[in-house]
């Protein structure tokens, strides 16, 4: 089926009248701005999946650019972090991780490469499963943990739940609010508003974005994941831009409150501390990385093991990596169609950049939904 046809069919599925009305309202508020284009950013792979899946870009007005920012935690896992996991695996440690992490490239190799050469890798769905792997063996098991605050909460919970002594964590967890600051401050950024991810905000609460709005004068709208949620969130965001009095609006009250889930926050910050670190392809992000606190040193793979990176780094770097534009794509300054590798040398089966690996990466999503989800240009 032609993707635009499929999009029309799927949009019909739930309340098409409301969808059409919201799309018309969005067109009107963008036109009322009287200038184009206006660019807004979302920071969530699930938002991009929904936008692509339901063909929403076809309904966005021409004057509105909706850009996916650094919202894929697998994609922003930095090369040295992958190198650490690969080195541990090659040292004979059992590494448990999410399936999407297997093919994320390090400087020369991925965990999948290490596995092909005999290293022991367990694919798990979450931190609790990684603990189960450790309980069933006497081997050392390291959970290579990626994900934003929503997922880091689960890693915190297993560490507070007295895991077995052969279990430890290699944290690549990242925290979203600080990277929004980085994107807002990038020279030449066109971003005038942020659509924040509903389920991350379920943990942090929408109040977490207020200091950001105050510092940068850029509005933030928290939105859910349904096509109607996203359209309504964008209408509200453009309204706030037009109004010129930036603030935070919560358009997902059935899951998000101002304070968020305090129980989860308390556990998160008892186990993790924020620290500066590089996000792949983007920048050094102050307070953007979550690392284990000293009280949990015995479960911190970085302190438990001497990780020898020399073997990993001595191999020759991967081909074409110098042409990869994932960093610009995640910063919102380029789109996959600007990349000469996209859909040619770089495809899901043989990804060059991390954005083509994860089901939440911009390039993988665009590739899956036809490589060009802006359906206007297909008409």
């Amino acid at each position, binding site marked *: 089926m032609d993707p635009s046809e499929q999009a029309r069919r799927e949009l019909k599925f739930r309340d098409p009248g409301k969808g059409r009305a919201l799309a018309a309202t969005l067109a009107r508020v963008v036109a009322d701005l009287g200038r184009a284009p206006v660019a807004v950013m979302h920071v969530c792979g699930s938002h991009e999946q929904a936008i692509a899946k339901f063909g929403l870009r076809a309904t966005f007005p021409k004057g509105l650019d909706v850009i996916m920012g650094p919202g894929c935690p*697998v994609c922003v896992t930095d090369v040295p972090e992958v190198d650490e996991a690969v080195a541990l695996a090659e040292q004979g440690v059992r590494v448990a991780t999410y399936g999407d992490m297997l093919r994320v490239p390090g400087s020369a190799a991925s965990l999948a490469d290490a596995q092909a050469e005999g290293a022991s890798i367990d694919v798990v769905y979450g931190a609790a*499963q990684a603990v189960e792997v450790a309980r069933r063996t006497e081997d050392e098991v390291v959970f290579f943990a990626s994900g934003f605050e929503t997922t880091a909460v689960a890693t915190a919970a297993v560490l507070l739940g007295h895991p077995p002594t052969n279990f430890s964590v290699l944290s690549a967890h990242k925290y979203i609010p600080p990277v929004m600051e980085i994107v807002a401050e990038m020279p030449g950024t066109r971003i005038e508003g942020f659509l924040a991810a509903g389920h991350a905000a379920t943990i942090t609460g929408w109040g977490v974005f207020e200091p950001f709005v105050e510092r940068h004068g850029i509005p933030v709208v928290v939105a859910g994941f349904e096509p109607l949620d996203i359209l309504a969130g964008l209408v509200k965001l453009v309204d706030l831009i037009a109004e010129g009095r930036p603030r935070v609006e919560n358009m997902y009250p059935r899951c998000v409150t101002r304070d968020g889930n305090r129980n*989860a926050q308390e556990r998160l910050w008892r186990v993790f501390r924020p620290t500066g670190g590089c996000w792949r392809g983007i920048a050094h992000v102050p307070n953007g990385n979550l690392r284990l606190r000293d009280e949990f040193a015995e479960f911190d793979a970085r302190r438990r093991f001497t990780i020898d990176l020399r073997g990993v780094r001595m191999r020759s770097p991967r081909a074409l990596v110098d042409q990869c534009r994932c960093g610009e794509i995640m910063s919102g300054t380029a789109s996959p169609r600007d990349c000469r590798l996209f859909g040619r040398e770089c495809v899901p089966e043989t990804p060059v950049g991390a954005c083509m690996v994860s089901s939440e990466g911009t390039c993988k999503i665009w590739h899956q939904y036809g490589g060009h989800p802006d359906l206007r240009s297909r008409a």
Partner: protein
Amino acid sequence: MCLGVPGKVLEVQGNVAVVDFFGLRRPVLLDVVDEPVAPGDFVLNHVGYAIRRIPPDQAQATLAFYEQLLGEAAEDAMAADVRGEITGTGEPKGPDDGSV
């Protein structure tokens, strides 16, 4: 990664709930949920943990979208993530099955 999945709590024993996800029963941990949870409640789950008790009057609105996703024959990234969230609360899976 960002997408939690709602389900209905069938029973609670200590910090583990048995949750019905559109016909599939899975254990879900309650360590980090925001409020006490009882059978009949709806919760939003992420990587094996309940992260929010959904207000009862808003449960249906939350469920409908997922019913739509799961009702589709076609497999795509979003439906696969939702299915992964649900099935993933059990045993570890094969190498091509996991997503964060």
